[in-house]
């Protein structure tokens, strides 16, 4: 079977991606192995890889990753539920929009990392504070995207559902949620990225375990190989999120004219 133009392009893009990655790692290895860049500034890639493997086997990496991911999952799940439902209700009820709208407009442009000290002041440095910062960082992009998606649902969908017996509440789920799903998904994508950023940030500042803490703590104690290994892990997680997201997106939006 002949590959279509799209498939050929995808394959080409994949090869190019791998090639640029190899080039990057290769140059990293060359500048460190030849000691153009001293080891205490940038350890060799191979050393970092070995350290990463040791950390993995010792269970340390798994422990810190699990601790990061559980905080993130809790905060993100809460933000997803609240952001989507609030966004839909805001789009359909003028009063809720008038109440919540101005608040979101004011808070939206604040870099969420700036909230970290405030949250630590109020909620301490435990898991609660970290979950809350993830929640705060993620809820707005999800809410705003959902709101825009839900507000732009074609009125003929709403009218059709009403004429088939749906009341206003039933159609929020049956129609508005589904119609807004493409925008909700793009909010989720943004939220995922932001959640990783603020999580690592808060773990650096508040400590008490997690990948962010591992990066910061080992930087302080001079164990740079561990620092880099932890950073690589964060990068891999970010990449995995994106892939998982695309898979999920294709699944839930298979009906749409255009897939993201």
């Amino acid at each position, binding site marked *: 079977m002949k590959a279509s133009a799209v498939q050929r392009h995808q394959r080409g893009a994949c090869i190019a991606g791998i090639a640029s990655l190899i080039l990057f790692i290769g140059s990293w290895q060359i500048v460190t192995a030849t000691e153009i860049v001293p080891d205490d500034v940038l350890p060799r890639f191979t050393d970092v890889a070995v350290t990463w493997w040791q950390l993995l086997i010792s269970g340390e990496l798994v422990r810190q990753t699990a601790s990061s991911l559980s905080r993130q999952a809790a905060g993100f799940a809460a933000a997803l539920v609240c952001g989507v439902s609030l966004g839909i209700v805001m789009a359909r009820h003028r009063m809720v929009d008038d109440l919540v709208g101005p608040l979101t407009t004011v808070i939206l442009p604040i870099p969420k990392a700036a909230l970290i000290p405030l949250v630590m002041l109020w909620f301490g440095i435990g898991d609660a504070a970290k979950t809350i910062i993830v929640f705060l960082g993620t809820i707005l992009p999800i809410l705003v995207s959902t709101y825009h998606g839900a507000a732009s649902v074609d009125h003929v969908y709403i*009218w*059709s559902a009403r004429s088939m017996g749906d009341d206003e509440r039933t159609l929020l789920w049956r129609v508005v949620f589904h119609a807004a799903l493409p925008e909700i998904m793009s909010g989720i994508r943004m939220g995922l990225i932001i959640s990783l950023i603020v999580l690592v940030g808060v773990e650096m500042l508040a400590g008490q375990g997690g990948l962010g803490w591992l990066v910061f703590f080992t930087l302080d104690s001079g164990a740079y190989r561990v620092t880099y290994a932890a950073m690589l892990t964060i990068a891999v997680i970010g990449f995995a999120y994106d892939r998982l997201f695309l898979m999920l997106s294709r699944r839930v939006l298979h*009906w749409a*004219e255009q897939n993201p």
Partner: protein
Amino acid sequence: MAASRVPKIVLRALHKDYDDGVTGRSVAAIHDLDLTVGAQEFLCLIGPSGCGKSTLLYILGGFVPPTSGEVLIDGRPVASPGPDRGIVFQEYALFPWLTVLENIMYGIRGEKTRGGRRIRAEQFVAKVHLTGFEHHYPRNLSGGMKQRVALARALAHDPEILLADEPFGALDTQTRSLMQEELLRIWESDRKTIVFVTHSVEEAVYLADRVVVMTARPGTVKADITVPLSRPRNFDVLMQAPEAMALRAELWRLVKEEVLRAGYFA
């Protein structure tokens, strides 16, 4: 004909103002309109663009409230949309996240089980000749197929009234005449009261028991004409009939008068 029927829909002194988005002034879309539609009657509304014929339909649907006047269905005032009035739009309005079958199942509530709803939906799939396409999504359907799904969906929950807002306006000529035939066939076997908005004089003559011509904005009834043609109707035969040709000419004259009066071509 119409007078002998039990009135299904009664509009009295209907008036609708819109806020003009640009100037903020209120503009009359419909003015002092009286209209009665008999039970099981097929009524076509025609008129120049912007005469408020779609607005009238949305008021009947309960989607848009009138500024003043009465809207009665079976003698009861209309307050909100309801499953007694099915609606078909020009832009199909199929839910793109649902398959053909799921779209048609959407409004079916009478059946107790999902299986029962499914069987009823499948009957409607067959009725609009879409067997084999049950599990297709709307994006994979042609315009004519989409409109057939929309029609099946609007009828599957068995409304007493079908409202149609230029449903075939976006279709090509052949598809359009096939759809008209199909609609007539369905209507002749299962007589709903139909209020059908169109801008096509030909379509109105072919389909309707009665044609109401609306004036240019603010819209009101200009002429109310009973179509003197027997049923079942055959499009090709019908359009050669002298009565049909005379009616077409008369309707076109009435509509043209309003188009010119509205100054669209000034």
